[in-house]
């Protein structure tokens, strides 16, 4: 039996800033994971990833990252995505600098 599809978001790095961005339902990119589109269907996931891959002038290295459905939108299930969402642990840099993300 094929493995059940787990929810995902499309994420990438911004070409100019290099920071972490996520694809939204309205085809825009957001810097807040809570605003990202949580994808629950495998075929739809592939289409969304294709859309991202067609924007090399905006994003670098798009991929599908596993997420859980939390009360405030998508939540990381792996610590790597948790660090990408938050920023480094030794300084309050990266996304931690934006008060809305704390």
């Amino acid at each position, binding site marked *: 039996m094929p493995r059940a599809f787990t929810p995902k978001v499309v994420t990438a790095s911004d070409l100019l800033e290099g920071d972490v961005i996520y694809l939204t339902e309205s085809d825009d990119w957001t810097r807040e994971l809570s605003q990202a589109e949580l994808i629950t269907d495998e075929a739809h996931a592939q289409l969304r990833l294709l859309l991202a891959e067609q924007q090399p*002038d905006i994003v670098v*290295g798009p991929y599908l990252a596993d997420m859980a459905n939390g009360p405030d939108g998508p939540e990381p299930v792996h*610590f790597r995505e948790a660090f990408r969402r938050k920023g480094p*642990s030794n300084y309050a*840099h990266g996304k931690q600098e934006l008060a809305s993300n704390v």
Partner: protein
Amino acid sequence: MYNYTEFDTAFLAERNAQFRAQVERRIAGHLTEDEFKPLRLMNGVYLQLHAYMLRVAIPYGTLNGAQMRQLALLAETWDKGYGHFTTRQNIQYNWPKLRDIPDMLDALGEVGLHAIQTSGNTIRNVTADHFAGAAQDELADPRPVAELIRQWSTDHPEFQFLGRKFKIAITGAEQDRAVTRAHDIGLRMVERDGEIGFEVLVGGGLGRTPLIGKAIRDFLPKADLLPYLEAVLSVYNLLGRRDNKYKARIKIMVHEHGIDDIRDRVEERFAAIRPSFSGIDQQLLAQIEPQFAAPDFLATDLAAYDATYKRDPLFRAWADTNLTAHRRDDHAIVTISLKAHGETPGDASAAQMRIMADLAERYAYNELRISHEQNVILPHVPRGYLPEIHAQLRKAGLATANVGLISDIIACPGMDYCALATARSIPIAQEIATRFDDLKLEHEIGELKIKISGCINACGHHHVGHIGILGLDRAGVENYQITLGGDGTETAAIGERAGPGFSADEIIPAIERLVLAYLDLREDKSETFLQTYRRTGLAPFKAALYPEAKAHAA
């Protein structure tokens, strides 16, 4: 130190202009990421977890005050006010924007610095003994030769697309402070019949397959160095594996073919190309050598030093740990620790960089070094100036007296920054340092090198740590493996894995058990951790690490 010629300056300006145009073409959409990536890597630009990262070469770890000040300017203007000094004696900026990087490279060019070949499958920044030119145990200063290698390897057309990256380290001293045995090529200056030449080691390296380099030539005359290096590289370029990234380093080639077979191939190639070296390289070296001449050493009054040493316990503690004997009795080598307890190993703020630049200019003949252990060195300091230097370092938070001790930890950036990492390293280093500072045991423990890597690529040199820590991802949780008995010096050894890994919560108590076991096991205070480990072997340390296993066995 080496001063750029007109040729160097023009070369660098042209190269930076090329990269500026490449960045513009990428932003305009004329280059894909696949096309752009090798170009940016050749210029030291990575895309990391949260941002781009610019890795700037500090050739053989040598800087002057103006260069250090320029590094501070970059940190302040285009980054977040700090930089991270690395185990390859480089500096990394963690937050540059793509559009700003060409300006950063131009600013570096103003002081004769660059980021060329700090990444990619090329010959990387040549590293050297950070005490070069100052150490007591030195045969000769290795930096003129390191500079010659830098010029030869920069943009060398034959070696721009090697199977994998290639790292060279060089030392002119008896004690190996440059980890030459863990490099693709390690060069040790040796003397035979009054002539200085090199012992050439090949095939060392850490990473997923740690191996100690083997001697391919016991004595190579100085004039044969470049043709011989070219012969080694050219054999590797053709024979090294390209089918599997993880088997592409020269160490695997040496391991698979055997050192004798490789030696024969290298000698054959060497014989073929040696005649094409007409001696221009030696003329060039003769022009480089005077630029590394020792400064005109000043005689200073030692009374102030002696008086402060007697009177001030903080100064005394710092002098006892952070000073190394200089080749002149009235001078000292100062190691400025970038390992304040609880701070990030190897990080310095722009303000700290400026203070170190000031101190170098005012008191230390305008020379600075970066060590692979992520500290900053003032290689030549008249002893009379030490109390004043210490006072100024204290004000800047740079006077931590811990060089060579348990909190002088090498740590890679780990998953706090690095896209390749499998776990974090920095918080583990911070917690170990803070814990042993709280216990007030650091000076009692004595010499102990802990080295932490956040993935199997081993940028944190964990295999050659007396205690090595490797961070892994085990079923979605950070997990830390311990290796023991590693050594990066002339008695190099790869550490032995102690057993199953520990979670992030368990690793600090595990290190504490290990160190307390050492204090029980050592014969006396003069027996270091590494000596005790070599005497007793793994068993008693393993028992301390895994007390439950012992209980079950009993």
